[in-house]
Protein backbone atom coordinates (compact mmCIF):
# COMPACT_ATOMS: atom_id res chain seq x y z
CA UNK A 1 0.00 0.00 0.00
CA UNK A 2 2.56 2.51 1.18
CA UNK A 3 5.44 1.39 -0.96
CA UNK A 4 4.10 0.30 -4.26
CA UNK A 5 4.91 1.11 -7.80
CA UNK A 6 1.51 0.37 -9.29
CA UNK A 7 0.54 3.08 -11.70
CA UNK A 8 4.10 4.28 -12.18
CA UNK A 9 4.60 3.30 -15.77
CA UNK A 10 8.08 3.58 -17.11
CA UNK A 11 7.78 4.23 -20.80
CA UNK A 12 11.45 4.56 -21.65
CA UNK A 13 14.66 2.85 -20.70
CA UNK A 14 15.84 6.26 -19.54
CA UNK A 15 13.12 6.26 -16.88
CA UNK A 16 13.93 2.70 -15.89
CA UNK A 17 17.66 3.40 -15.67
CA UNK A 18 17.20 6.51 -13.52
CA UNK A 19 19.07 6.49 -10.24
CA UNK A 20 15.86 6.14 -8.20
CA UNK A 21 13.25 4.75 -10.59
CA UNK A 22 10.47 4.56 -7.99
CA UNK A 23 8.69 7.71 -6.82
CA UNK A 24 8.63 6.71 -3.16
CA UNK A 25 12.39 6.25 -3.20
CA UNK A 26 12.88 9.67 -4.71
CA UNK A 27 10.62 11.22 -2.11
CA UNK A 28 12.29 9.31 0.72
CA UNK A 29 15.70 10.42 -0.44
CA UNK A 30 14.59 14.04 -0.60
CA UNK A 31 13.17 13.83 2.92
CA UNK A 32 16.38 12.31 4.27
CA UNK A 33 18.50 14.96 2.56
CA UNK A 34 16.23 17.74 3.78
CA UNK A 35 16.45 16.45 7.34
CA UNK A 36 20.22 16.01 7.14
CA UNK A 37 20.94 19.36 5.51
CA UNK A 38 18.28 21.62 7.02
CA UNK A 39 16.58 20.20 10.07
CA UNK A 40 19.64 18.72 11.78
CA UNK A 41 21.88 21.81 11.60
CA UNK A 42 18.98 23.94 12.86
CA UNK A 43 18.01 21.73 15.77
CA UNK A 44 20.99 19.68 16.85
CA UNK A 45 23.25 20.94 19.60
CA UNK A 46 27.00 21.36 19.10
CA UNK A 47 27.54 18.26 21.20
CA UNK A 48 25.36 16.20 18.87
CA UNK A 49 27.01 17.57 15.78
CA UNK A 50 30.61 17.02 16.85
CA UNK A 51 30.49 13.81 18.82
CA UNK A 52 27.68 11.89 17.12
CA UNK A 53 26.78 13.07 13.66
CA UNK A 54 30.25 13.94 12.36
CA UNK A 55 31.75 10.54 13.19
CA UNK A 56 28.63 8.90 11.78
CA UNK A 57 28.91 10.52 8.34
CA UNK A 58 32.70 10.06 8.23
CA UNK A 59 32.51 6.41 9.27
CA UNK A 60 29.74 6.04 6.72
CA UNK A 61 32.06 7.30 4.00
CA UNK A 62 34.89 4.99 5.07
CA UNK A 63 32.47 2.05 5.20
CA UNK A 64 31.27 2.97 1.74
CA UNK A 65 34.86 2.93 0.54
CA UNK A 66 35.49 -0.51 2.00
CA UNK A 67 32.15 -1.72 0.69
CA UNK A 68 33.17 -0.83 -2.85
CA UNK A 69 36.25 -2.97 -2.48
CA UNK A 70 34.90 -5.83 -0.37
CA UNK A 71 31.17 -5.81 -1.03
CA UNK A 72 31.18 -4.99 -4.73
CA UNK A 73 34.55 -6.20 -6.00
CA UNK A 74 34.88 -9.05 -3.49
CA UNK A 75 38.41 -8.18 -2.36
CA UNK A 76 38.66 -8.56 1.40
CA UNK A 77 40.73 -5.76 2.94
CA UNK A 78 41.95 -4.97 6.43
CA UNK A 79 43.89 -1.90 5.36
CA UNK A 80 41.09 0.65 5.76
CA UNK A 81 42.68 2.34 8.75
CA UNK A 82 45.99 2.65 6.96
CA UNK A 83 44.33 4.22 3.93
CA UNK A 84 42.44 6.66 6.15
CA UNK A 85 45.72 7.63 7.78
CA UNK A 86 47.21 8.07 4.36
CA UNK A 87 44.42 10.47 3.39
CA UNK A 88 44.74 12.39 6.65
CA UNK A 89 48.51 12.82 6.39
CA UNK A 90 48.39 13.61 2.68
CA UNK A 91 45.83 16.34 3.37
CA UNK A 92 47.95 17.66 6.24
CA UNK A 93 51.12 17.81 4.14
CA UNK A 94 49.30 19.46 1.26
CA UNK A 95 47.52 21.99 3.44
CA UNK A 96 50.69 23.00 5.29
CA UNK A 97 53.01 23.00 2.27
CA UNK A 98 50.61 24.86 0.00
CA UNK A 99 48.41 26.99 2.26
CA UNK A 100 46.86 28.75 -0.72
CA UNK A 101 45.21 25.54 -2.00
CA UNK A 102 41.45 25.45 -1.69
CA UNK A 103 40.09 22.97 0.81
CA UNK A 104 38.27 20.98 -1.86
CA UNK A 105 41.46 20.69 -3.90
CA UNK A 106 43.32 19.50 -0.81
CA UNK A 107 40.72 16.83 -0.16
CA UNK A 108 40.55 15.69 -3.77
CA UNK A 109 44.34 15.46 -4.03
CA UNK A 110 44.68 13.59 -0.76
CA UNK A 111 42.05 11.17 -2.06
CA UNK A 112 43.99 10.71 -5.28
CA UNK A 113 47.26 10.12 -3.41
CA UNK A 114 45.54 7.50 -1.28
CA UNK A 115 44.10 5.95 -4.44
CA UNK A 116 47.61 5.56 -5.84
CA UNK A 117 48.82 4.02 -2.58
CA UNK A 118 45.79 1.72 -2.53
CA UNK A 119 46.51 0.53 -6.05
CA UNK A 120 50.06 -0.28 -5.05
CA UNK A 121 48.86 -2.44 -2.17
CA UNK A 122 46.18 -3.91 -4.43
CA UNK A 123 48.72 -5.41 -6.80
CA UNK A 124 48.93 -8.75 -4.94
CA UNK A 125 45.17 -9.19 -5.44
CA UNK A 126 45.78 -10.64 -8.90
CA UNK A 127 47.46 -13.64 -7.35
CA UNK A 128 45.91 -14.03 -3.92
CA UNK A 129 42.31 -14.15 -2.86
CA UNK A 130 40.07 -14.14 0.17
CA UNK A 131 41.63 -14.39 3.60
CA UNK A 132 45.13 -14.39 2.18
CA UNK A 133 44.49 -11.08 0.50
CA UNK A 134 43.20 -9.75 3.82
CA UNK A 135 46.53 -10.67 5.34
CA UNK A 136 48.34 -8.94 2.49
CA UNK A 137 46.33 -5.77 3.05
CA UNK A 138 47.29 -5.92 6.71
CA UNK A 139 50.73 -5.03 5.41
CA UNK A 140 49.28 -1.72 4.19
CA UNK A 141 47.73 -1.12 7.59
CA UNK A 142 50.92 -1.71 9.56
CA UNK A 143 53.37 -0.27 7.07
CA UNK A 144 51.50 3.01 6.54
CA UNK A 145 51.00 3.57 10.26
CA UNK A 146 54.62 2.79 10.95
CA UNK A 147 55.66 5.19 8.20
CA UNK A 148 53.59 8.09 9.52
CA UNK A 149 54.69 7.37 13.07
CA UNK A 150 58.40 7.02 12.44
CA UNK A 151 59.16 9.47 9.64
CA UNK A 152 59.01 12.95 11.17
CA UNK A 153 58.64 14.61 7.77
CA UNK A 154 54.98 13.54 7.66
CA UNK A 155 54.15 15.35 10.89
CA UNK A 156 56.27 18.39 9.99
CA UNK A 157 58.73 17.36 12.73
CA UNK A 158 56.24 17.77 15.55
CA UNK A 159 57.67 16.19 18.68
CA UNK A 160 54.44 14.50 19.73
CA UNK A 161 53.66 12.95 16.35
CA UNK A 162 50.31 14.72 16.37
CA UNK A 163 49.15 16.71 13.38
CA UNK A 164 46.70 19.53 13.90
CA UNK A 165 44.57 20.58 10.99
CA UNK A 166 45.18 24.12 9.74
CA UNK A 167 42.08 26.25 9.28
CA UNK A 168 40.81 26.10 5.71
CA UNK A 169 37.93 28.15 4.38
CA UNK A 170 35.38 27.04 1.85
CA UNK A 171 34.94 30.70 0.90
CA UNK A 172 35.88 34.01 2.53
CA UNK A 173 36.00 33.57 6.29
CA UNK A 174 33.77 30.50 6.44
CA UNK A 175 36.16 27.96 7.92
CA UNK A 176 35.27 24.31 7.63
CA UNK A 177 38.35 22.75 9.24
CA UNK A 178 40.54 23.46 12.21
CA UNK A 179 39.56 24.98 15.52
CA UNK A 180 38.14 28.18 14.04
CA UNK A 181 35.34 26.30 12.30
CA UNK A 182 31.95 26.03 13.95
CA UNK A 183 30.57 22.51 14.43
CA UNK A 184 27.72 23.40 12.11
CA UNK A 185 30.06 24.39 9.27
CA UNK A 186 32.17 21.27 9.77
CA UNK A 187 29.11 19.06 9.77
CA UNK A 188 27.63 20.63 6.67
CA UNK A 189 30.94 20.43 4.85
CA UNK A 190 31.46 16.77 5.73
CA UNK A 191 27.85 15.97 4.89
CA UNK A 192 28.12 17.62 1.46
CA UNK A 193 31.31 15.75 0.60
CA UNK A 194 29.84 12.46 1.78
CA UNK A 195 26.55 12.99 -0.06
CA UNK A 196 28.27 13.79 -3.35
CA UNK A 197 30.63 10.83 -3.03
CA UNK A 198 27.77 8.50 -2.10
CA UNK A 199 25.87 9.65 -5.18
CA UNK A 200 28.91 9.02 -7.35
CA UNK A 201 29.32 5.57 -5.79
CA UNK A 202 25.68 4.75 -6.47
CA UNK A 203 26.17 5.70 -10.11
CA UNK A 204 29.43 3.81 -10.49
CA UNK A 205 28.12 0.65 -8.90
CA UNK A 206 25.06 0.47 -11.14
CA UNK A 207 26.94 1.16 -14.40
CA UNK A 208 29.72 -0.49 -16.35
CA UNK A 209 32.49 -0.29 -13.76
CA UNK A 210 30.23 -1.59 -10.99
CA UNK A 211 29.15 -4.53 -13.13
CA UNK A 212 32.78 -5.30 -13.83
CA UNK A 213 33.51 -5.28 -10.08
CA UNK A 214 30.59 -7.56 -9.30
CA UNK A 215 31.46 -9.86 -12.20
CA UNK A 216 34.97 -10.27 -10.80
CA UNK A 217 33.49 -10.89 -7.36
CA UNK A 218 30.94 -13.47 -8.50
CA UNK A 219 32.87 -15.46 -11.11
CA UNK A 220 36.27 -14.20 -12.16
CA UNK A 221 36.78 -16.82 -14.87
CA UNK A 222 33.57 -15.96 -16.69
CA UNK A 223 34.39 -12.27 -16.30
CA UNK A 224 37.71 -12.76 -18.00
CA UNK A 225 36.12 -14.66 -20.88
CA UNK A 226 33.70 -11.77 -21.40
CA UNK A 227 36.67 -9.47 -21.82
CA UNK A 228 36.94 -7.93 -18.35
CA UNK A 229 40.60 -7.52 -17.40
CA UNK A 230 40.94 -8.91 -13.86
CA UNK A 231 43.93 -6.86 -12.77
CA UNK A 232 42.67 -3.55 -14.15
CA UNK A 233 39.25 -4.12 -12.62
CA UNK A 234 40.59 -5.10 -9.22
CA UNK A 235 42.99 -2.17 -9.21
CA UNK A 236 40.21 0.23 -10.14
CA UNK A 237 38.25 -1.08 -7.16
CA UNK A 238 41.28 -0.56 -4.92
CA UNK A 239 41.74 2.95 -6.34
CA UNK A 240 38.14 4.07 -5.88
CA UNK A 241 37.88 2.43 -2.48
CA UNK A 242 41.10 4.01 -1.28
CA UNK A 243 40.00 7.39 -2.63
CA UNK A 244 36.90 7.19 -0.45
CA UNK A 245 38.83 5.97 2.58
CA UNK A 246 41.44 8.67 2.04
CA UNK A 247 38.85 11.44 1.92
CA UNK A 248 37.22 9.92 5.01
CA UNK A 249 40.57 9.99 6.79
CA UNK A 250 41.16 13.60 5.77
CA UNK A 251 37.70 14.55 7.03
CA UNK A 252 38.42 12.68 10.23
CA UNK A 253 41.57 14.66 10.90
CA UNK A 254 40.39 18.02 9.59
CA UNK A 255 36.70 18.22 10.36
CA UNK A 256 36.12 15.78 13.22
CA UNK A 257 39.04 15.65 15.64
CA UNK A 258 41.09 18.59 14.40
CA UNK A 259 44.25 17.01 15.74
CA UNK A 260 45.22 13.42 15.20
CA UNK A 261 48.15 11.04 15.43
CA UNK A 262 48.84 8.04 13.22
CA UNK A 263 47.83 5.57 15.92
CA UNK A 264 44.26 6.87 15.82
CA UNK A 265 43.91 4.86 12.61
CA UNK A 266 45.07 1.53 14.00
CA UNK A 267 43.83 -1.94 13.17
CA UNK A 268 40.79 -1.49 15.40
CA UNK A 269 39.48 1.13 13.00
CA UNK A 270 39.88 -1.29 10.11
CA UNK A 271 37.98 -3.99 11.97
CA UNK A 272 35.31 -1.56 13.07
CA UNK A 273 34.65 -0.52 9.48
CA UNK A 274 34.68 -4.13 8.32
CA UNK A 275 32.01 -4.93 10.95
CA UNK A 276 29.99 -1.97 9.74
CA UNK A 277 29.75 -3.30 6.22
CA UNK A 278 29.11 -6.86 7.37
CA UNK A 279 26.27 -5.74 9.61
CA UNK A 280 25.05 -3.06 7.22
CA UNK A 281 25.14 -5.24 4.14
CA UNK A 282 27.90 -6.13 1.72
CA UNK A 283 27.41 -4.67 -1.72
CA UNK A 284 24.99 -1.95 -0.68
CA UNK A 285 25.46 1.81 -0.51
CA UNK A 286 22.64 2.16 1.97
CA UNK A 287 24.08 -0.70 4.01
CA UNK A 288 27.34 1.16 4.52
CA UNK A 289 25.50 3.98 6.26
CA UNK A 290 23.14 1.70 8.15
CA UNK A 291 26.14 -0.25 9.44
CA UNK A 292 27.97 2.93 10.39
CA UNK A 293 24.86 4.12 12.19
CA UNK A 294 24.51 0.82 14.02
CA UNK A 295 28.11 0.73 15.22
CA UNK A 296 28.49 4.45 15.97
CA UNK A 297 25.08 5.45 17.22
CA UNK A 298 23.84 2.38 19.06
CA UNK A 299 26.52 2.41 21.80
CA UNK A 300 25.78 6.06 22.48
CA UNK A 301 22.08 5.37 22.58
CA UNK A 302 22.56 2.37 24.87
CA UNK A 303 24.84 4.32 27.16
CA UNK A 304 22.36 7.15 27.51
CA UNK A 305 19.48 4.74 27.97
CA UNK A 306 21.30 2.87 30.72
CA UNK A 307 22.25 6.08 32.46
CA UNK A 308 18.71 7.31 32.22
CA UNK A 309 17.53 4.09 33.81
CA UNK A 310 19.21 5.12 37.03
CA UNK A 311 22.70 3.79 36.57
CA UNK A 312 24.29 7.17 36.92
CA UNK A 313 26.28 5.93 39.92
CA UNK A 314 27.42 2.65 38.34
CA UNK A 315 29.13 4.08 35.28
CA UNK A 316 31.52 1.16 34.96
CA UNK A 317 28.65 -1.33 35.09
CA UNK A 318 26.78 0.68 32.49
CA UNK A 319 29.69 0.57 30.07
CA UNK A 320 30.10 -3.18 30.58
CA UNK A 321 26.41 -3.71 29.98
CA UNK A 322 26.69 -1.59 26.88
CA UNK A 323 29.37 -3.90 25.48
CA UNK A 324 27.32 -6.99 26.28
CA UNK A 325 24.12 -5.70 24.73
CA UNK A 326 26.01 -4.47 21.68
CA UNK A 327 27.64 -7.89 21.17
CA UNK A 328 24.33 -9.69 21.61
CA UNK A 329 22.65 -7.39 19.11
CA UNK A 330 25.37 -7.96 16.52
CA UNK A 331 24.99 -11.73 16.84
CA UNK A 332 21.21 -11.44 16.75
CA UNK A 333 21.25 -9.39 13.58
CA UNK A 334 23.68 -11.72 11.88
CA UNK A 335 21.50 -14.71 12.71
CA UNK A 336 18.26 -13.03 11.66
CA UNK A 337 19.72 -11.65 8.45
CA UNK A 338 23.24 -12.63 7.44
CA UNK A 339 23.05 -10.25 4.50
CA UNK A 340 22.80 -7.27 6.75
CA UNK A 341 20.50 -4.43 7.58
CA UNK A 342 20.23 -3.39 3.93
CA UNK A 343 18.61 -6.73 3.11
CA UNK A 344 16.23 -6.36 6.04
CA UNK A 345 15.20 -3.01 4.63
CA UNK A 346 14.68 -4.59 1.23
CA UNK A 347 12.51 -7.34 2.70
CA UNK A 348 10.53 -4.70 4.53
CA UNK A 349 9.98 -2.83 1.26
CA UNK A 350 8.79 -6.04 -0.40
CA UNK A 351 6.31 -6.51 2.44
CA UNK A 352 5.17 -2.92 2.26
CA UNK A 353 4.31 -3.32 -1.40
CA UNK A 354 1.51 -5.67 -0.48
CA UNK A 355 0.62 -4.54 2.99
CA UNK A 356 -2.08 -4.62 4.29
CA UNK A 357 -3.56 -6.97 1.68
CA UNK A 358 -0.95 -9.64 0.99
CA UNK A 359 -3.01 -11.88 -1.23
Amino acid at each position, binding site marked *: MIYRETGQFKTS*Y*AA*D*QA*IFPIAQDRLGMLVILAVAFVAVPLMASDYWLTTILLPFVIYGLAALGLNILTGYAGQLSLGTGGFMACGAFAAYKLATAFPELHVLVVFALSGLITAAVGMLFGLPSLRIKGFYLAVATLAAQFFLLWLFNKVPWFTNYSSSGVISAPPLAIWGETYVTGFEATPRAKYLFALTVVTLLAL*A*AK*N*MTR*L*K*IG*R*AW*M*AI*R*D*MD*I*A*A*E*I*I*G*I*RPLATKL*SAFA*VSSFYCGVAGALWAFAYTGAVEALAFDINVSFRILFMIIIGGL*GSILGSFLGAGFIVLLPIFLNNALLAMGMAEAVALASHLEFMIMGALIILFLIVEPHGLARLWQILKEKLRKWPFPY
Partner: protein
Amino acid sequence: MSGVQQRESAVQRKRHIGDVLLAAENIGLRFGGVQALAGVSFDIREGEIRAIIGPNGAGKSSMLNVINGFYQPQEGHIVWRGQRMRRMRPHFAARNGIARTFQNIALFKGMTTLDNIMTGRMLKMRATMLEQAVFWGRARREELEHRAFVERIIDFLEIPHIRNVPVGKLPYGLQKRVELARALAMEPTLLLLDEPMAGMNLEEKEDMCRYILDVNEEFGTTVALIEHDMGVVMDISDRVVVLDYGRLLADGPPEEVRRDPEVIKAYLGVSQD
Protein backbone atom coordinates in the same frame (compact mmCIF):
# COMPACT_ATOMS: atom_id res chain seq x y z
CA MET B 1 9.60 -27.68 -37.12
CA SER B 2 8.73 -30.50 -39.45
CA GLY B 3 11.34 -32.73 -41.02
CA VAL B 4 10.94 -31.28 -44.48
CA GLN B 5 11.33 -27.70 -43.34
CA GLN B 6 14.32 -28.70 -41.32
CA ARG B 7 16.06 -30.20 -44.31
CA GLU B 8 15.26 -27.13 -46.36
CA SER B 9 16.73 -24.79 -43.79
CA ALA B 10 19.77 -27.02 -43.55
CA VAL B 11 20.23 -26.67 -47.30
CA GLN B 12 19.83 -22.92 -47.08
CA ARG B 13 22.34 -22.76 -44.31
CA LYS B 14 24.92 -24.62 -46.33
CA ARG B 15 24.78 -21.77 -48.78
CA HIS B 16 25.72 -19.34 -46.02
CA ILE B 17 28.73 -21.30 -44.98
CA GLY B 18 31.83 -19.40 -45.95
CA ASP B 19 35.57 -19.42 -45.38
CA VAL B 20 37.46 -20.91 -42.52
CA LEU B 21 36.90 -18.65 -39.52
CA LEU B 22 39.06 -20.43 -37.02
CA ALA B 23 41.38 -23.36 -37.32
CA ALA B 24 43.05 -25.43 -34.65
CA GLU B 25 46.40 -26.69 -35.89
CA ASN B 26 47.97 -29.71 -34.30
CA ILE B 27 46.94 -28.70 -30.77
CA GLY B 28 48.73 -30.51 -27.94
CA LEU B 29 47.83 -29.75 -24.34
CA ARG B 30 49.23 -31.39 -21.22
CA PHE B 31 48.42 -31.00 -17.54
CA GLY B 32 51.46 -32.47 -15.84
CA GLY B 33 51.47 -36.05 -17.00
CA VAL B 34 47.97 -36.01 -18.42
CA GLN B 35 47.77 -35.53 -22.16
CA ALA B 36 44.45 -33.70 -22.57
CA LEU B 37 44.82 -33.06 -26.28
CA ALA B 38 47.27 -34.53 -28.76
CA GLY B 39 47.71 -33.34 -32.31
CA VAL B 40 44.16 -32.17 -32.78
CA SER B 41 43.47 -30.25 -36.00
CA PHE B 42 40.14 -29.10 -37.35
CA ASP B 43 38.55 -25.93 -38.62
CA ILE B 44 35.35 -24.00 -38.08
CA ARG B 45 33.82 -22.32 -41.11
CA GLU B 46 31.95 -19.08 -41.06
CA GLY B 47 28.22 -19.54 -40.57
CA GLU B 48 28.21 -23.21 -39.71
CA ILE B 49 27.10 -25.12 -36.64
CA ARG B 50 30.03 -27.26 -35.61
CA ALA B 51 29.60 -29.95 -32.99
CA ILE B 52 32.38 -31.40 -30.88
CA ILE B 53 31.48 -34.75 -29.38
CA GLY B 54 33.26 -37.46 -27.50
CA PRO B 55 33.09 -39.49 -24.28
CA ASN B 56 33.75 -37.90 -20.88
CA GLY B 57 37.34 -36.77 -20.51
CA ALA B 58 37.92 -36.73 -24.27
CA GLY B 59 39.19 -33.14 -24.10
CA LYS B 60 36.16 -31.34 -25.52
CA SER B 61 35.99 -28.59 -22.91
CA SER B 62 39.76 -28.26 -22.98
CA MET B 63 39.48 -27.69 -26.71
CA LEU B 64 37.03 -24.81 -26.17
CA ASN B 65 39.32 -23.39 -23.49
CA VAL B 66 42.20 -23.47 -25.96
CA ILE B 67 40.10 -21.77 -28.63
CA ASN B 68 39.26 -18.77 -26.47
CA GLY B 69 42.70 -18.53 -24.97
CA PHE B 70 41.90 -19.70 -21.49
CA TYR B 71 44.39 -22.56 -21.77
CA GLN B 72 47.70 -22.19 -23.57
CA PRO B 73 48.52 -25.34 -25.55
CA GLN B 74 52.12 -26.59 -25.43
CA GLU B 75 52.02 -27.47 -29.11
CA GLY B 76 50.20 -26.10 -32.12
CA HIS B 77 48.27 -22.88 -32.52
CA ILE B 78 44.97 -21.32 -33.24
CA VAL B 79 44.52 -19.59 -36.59
CA TRP B 80 41.94 -16.81 -36.39
CA ARG B 81 40.69 -15.47 -39.73
CA GLY B 82 43.84 -16.68 -41.45
CA GLN B 83 46.08 -15.06 -38.86
CA ARG B 84 48.24 -17.45 -36.89
CA MET B 85 48.07 -16.52 -33.18
CA ARG B 86 51.24 -17.05 -31.24
CA ARG B 87 49.21 -17.05 -28.06
CA MET B 88 45.46 -16.72 -27.90
CA ARG B 89 44.32 -14.55 -25.00
CA PRO B 90 40.84 -14.41 -23.43
CA HIS B 91 40.75 -10.66 -23.86
CA PHE B 92 41.74 -10.87 -27.52
CA ALA B 93 39.16 -13.58 -28.07
CA ALA B 94 36.45 -11.49 -26.42
CA ARG B 95 37.34 -8.39 -28.43
CA ASN B 96 37.26 -10.37 -31.65
CA GLY B 97 33.83 -11.72 -30.94
CA ILE B 98 34.41 -15.16 -29.49
CA ALA B 99 31.80 -15.69 -26.81
CA ARG B 100 31.15 -18.81 -24.78
CA THR B 101 28.94 -20.47 -22.23
CA PHE B 102 30.08 -22.96 -19.63
CA GLN B 103 29.24 -26.52 -18.77
CA ASN B 104 28.58 -25.65 -15.14
CA ILE B 105 26.82 -22.33 -15.41
CA ALA B 106 29.19 -19.43 -14.83
CA LEU B 107 26.78 -16.57 -14.26
CA PHE B 108 27.33 -13.70 -11.85
CA LYS B 109 25.03 -15.00 -9.12
CA GLY B 110 24.62 -11.81 -7.13
CA MET B 111 23.52 -9.75 -10.12
CA THR B 112 20.14 -9.55 -11.82
CA THR B 113 19.44 -11.10 -15.20
CA LEU B 114 19.57 -7.68 -16.81
CA ASP B 115 22.93 -6.81 -15.25
CA ASN B 116 24.34 -10.17 -16.21
CA ILE B 117 23.42 -9.63 -19.83
CA MET B 118 24.64 -6.03 -19.71
CA THR B 119 28.11 -7.31 -18.76
CA GLY B 120 28.19 -8.80 -22.26
CA ARG B 121 28.19 -5.24 -23.63
CA MET B 122 31.11 -4.24 -21.44
CA LEU B 123 33.69 -4.14 -24.22
CA LYS B 124 31.52 -1.86 -26.33
CA MET B 125 31.24 0.82 -23.63
CA ARG B 126 33.71 3.66 -23.73
CA ALA B 127 32.63 6.01 -20.91
CA THR B 128 35.31 6.87 -18.37
CA MET B 129 34.93 6.27 -14.67
CA LEU B 130 34.31 9.97 -14.06
CA GLU B 131 31.51 10.09 -16.62
CA GLN B 132 29.95 7.07 -14.98
CA ALA B 133 30.22 8.64 -11.53
CA VAL B 134 28.05 11.56 -12.65
CA PHE B 135 25.90 9.48 -15.05
CA TRP B 136 26.04 12.18 -17.67
CA GLY B 137 26.85 12.51 -21.35
CA ARG B 138 28.47 9.45 -22.85
CA ALA B 139 27.88 7.23 -19.82
CA ARG B 140 24.15 7.87 -19.87
CA ARG B 141 23.84 7.65 -23.64
CA GLU B 142 25.77 4.38 -23.81
CA GLU B 143 23.84 2.86 -20.96
CA LEU B 144 20.50 3.53 -22.67
CA GLU B 145 21.74 2.42 -26.07
CA HIS B 146 23.04 -0.89 -24.76
CA ARG B 147 19.99 -1.36 -22.61
CA ALA B 148 17.87 -1.17 -25.76
CA PHE B 149 20.08 -3.78 -27.44
CA VAL B 150 19.96 -6.08 -24.42
CA GLU B 151 16.19 -5.79 -24.31
CA ARG B 152 16.06 -7.18 -27.86
CA ILE B 153 18.03 -10.22 -26.72
CA ILE B 154 15.75 -10.58 -23.71
CA ASP B 155 12.77 -10.59 -26.05
CA PHE B 156 14.46 -13.00 -28.42
CA LEU B 157 15.15 -15.53 -25.67
CA GLU B 158 11.75 -14.95 -24.09
CA ILE B 159 12.96 -14.02 -20.63
CA PRO B 160 11.44 -10.55 -19.97
CA HIS B 161 9.68 -11.77 -16.85
CA ILE B 162 12.95 -12.51 -15.04
CA ARG B 163 14.67 -9.25 -16.04
CA ASN B 164 15.12 -8.01 -12.49
CA VAL B 165 15.55 -11.32 -10.68
CA PRO B 166 18.98 -12.15 -9.23
CA VAL B 167 20.16 -15.10 -11.34
CA GLY B 168 21.07 -17.15 -8.28
CA LYS B 169 17.35 -17.56 -7.66
CA LEU B 170 16.48 -18.82 -11.15
CA PRO B 171 15.89 -22.47 -12.03
CA TYR B 172 18.61 -24.27 -13.93
CA GLY B 173 17.04 -24.12 -17.38
CA LEU B 174 16.53 -20.39 -17.20
CA GLN B 175 20.08 -19.85 -15.93
CA LYS B 176 21.35 -21.63 -19.03
CA ARG B 177 19.25 -19.30 -21.12
CA VAL B 178 20.55 -16.21 -19.33
CA GLU B 179 24.07 -17.42 -19.95
CA LEU B 180 23.29 -17.74 -23.64
CA ALA B 181 21.82 -14.24 -23.54
CA ARG B 182 25.00 -12.88 -21.98
CA ALA B 183 27.09 -14.50 -24.70
CA LEU B 184 24.75 -13.14 -27.40
CA ALA B 185 25.02 -9.63 -25.94
CA MET B 186 28.62 -9.66 -27.11
CA GLU B 187 27.33 -9.89 -30.69
CA PRO B 188 29.69 -12.80 -31.23
CA THR B 189 31.01 -13.96 -34.58
CA LEU B 190 31.84 -17.30 -33.00
CA LEU B 191 29.71 -18.71 -30.22
CA LEU B 192 31.17 -21.55 -28.16
CA LEU B 193 28.57 -23.53 -26.26
CA ASP B 194 29.72 -26.07 -23.69
CA GLU B 195 26.88 -28.56 -23.25
CA PRO B 196 24.07 -26.04 -23.63
CA MET B 197 21.45 -28.73 -23.06
CA ALA B 198 22.96 -30.68 -20.18
CA GLY B 199 20.41 -31.46 -17.50
CA MET B 200 17.46 -30.09 -19.45
CA ASN B 201 14.16 -31.77 -20.08
CA LEU B 202 12.91 -32.43 -23.61
CA GLU B 203 10.94 -29.20 -23.87
CA GLU B 204 13.83 -27.06 -22.67
CA LYS B 205 16.15 -28.85 -25.07
CA GLU B 206 13.84 -28.12 -27.98
CA ASP B 207 13.67 -24.47 -26.97
CA MET B 208 17.43 -24.28 -26.78
CA CYS B 209 17.80 -25.94 -30.21
CA ARG B 210 15.42 -23.41 -31.66
CA TYR B 211 17.42 -20.53 -30.17
CA ILE B 212 20.69 -21.90 -31.48
CA LEU B 213 19.29 -22.39 -34.98
CA ASP B 214 17.69 -18.94 -34.93
CA VAL B 215 20.90 -17.28 -33.80
CA ASN B 216 22.77 -19.08 -36.53
CA GLU B 217 20.28 -18.24 -39.26
CA GLU B 218 19.20 -14.73 -38.34
CA PHE B 219 22.50 -13.27 -37.20
CA GLY B 220 24.76 -15.56 -39.20
CA THR B 221 26.63 -16.43 -36.00
CA THR B 222 29.02 -19.34 -36.25
CA VAL B 223 28.36 -21.87 -33.50
CA ALA B 224 30.67 -24.50 -32.05
CA LEU B 225 28.98 -26.66 -29.47
CA ILE B 226 29.76 -29.59 -27.26
CA GLU B 227 26.77 -31.82 -26.71
CA HIS B 228 26.06 -35.32 -25.48
CA ASP B 229 22.56 -35.67 -26.87
CA MET B 230 23.22 -37.43 -30.17
CA GLY B 231 19.77 -36.64 -31.48
CA VAL B 232 20.42 -32.94 -31.06
CA VAL B 233 23.90 -33.13 -32.54
CA MET B 234 22.81 -35.07 -35.60
CA ASP B 235 19.85 -32.74 -36.17
CA ILE B 236 21.34 -29.30 -35.90
CA SER B 237 25.03 -29.52 -36.72
CA ASP B 238 26.59 -29.13 -40.14
CA ARG B 239 29.82 -30.90 -39.30
CA VAL B 240 30.93 -32.95 -36.34
CA VAL B 241 34.34 -33.42 -34.72
CA VAL B 242 34.78 -36.54 -32.62
CA LEU B 243 37.44 -36.57 -29.90
CA ASP B 244 38.54 -39.55 -27.85
CA TYR B 245 41.29 -39.50 -25.24
CA GLY B 246 42.51 -36.20 -26.63
CA ARG B 247 42.88 -37.52 -30.17
CA LEU B 248 40.83 -36.60 -33.20
CA LEU B 249 38.78 -39.65 -34.11
CA ALA B 250 36.64 -38.39 -36.96
CA ASP B 251 35.61 -35.17 -38.66
CA GLY B 252 32.80 -34.72 -41.14
CA PRO B 253 29.06 -34.30 -41.71
CA PRO B 254 26.84 -36.00 -39.12
CA GLU B 255 25.70 -38.84 -41.41
CA GLU B 256 29.27 -39.73 -42.21
CA VAL B 257 30.45 -39.57 -38.60
CA ARG B 258 27.54 -41.69 -37.51
CA ARG B 259 28.66 -44.46 -39.85
CA ASP B 260 32.35 -44.26 -38.98
CA PRO B 261 33.30 -47.62 -37.42
CA GLU B 262 35.91 -46.01 -35.16
CA VAL B 263 33.32 -43.63 -33.74
CA ILE B 264 30.81 -46.39 -33.26
CA LYS B 265 33.38 -48.41 -31.39
CA ALA B 266 34.58 -45.57 -29.19
CA TYR B 267 31.49 -43.61 -28.52
CA LEU B 268 28.16 -44.66 -29.87
CA GLY B 269 28.53 -48.25 -28.71
CA VAL B 270 27.81 -51.37 -30.72
CA SER B 271 25.89 -50.70 -33.91
CA GLN B 272 22.19 -51.34 -33.55
CA ASP B 273 21.44 -52.16 -37.19
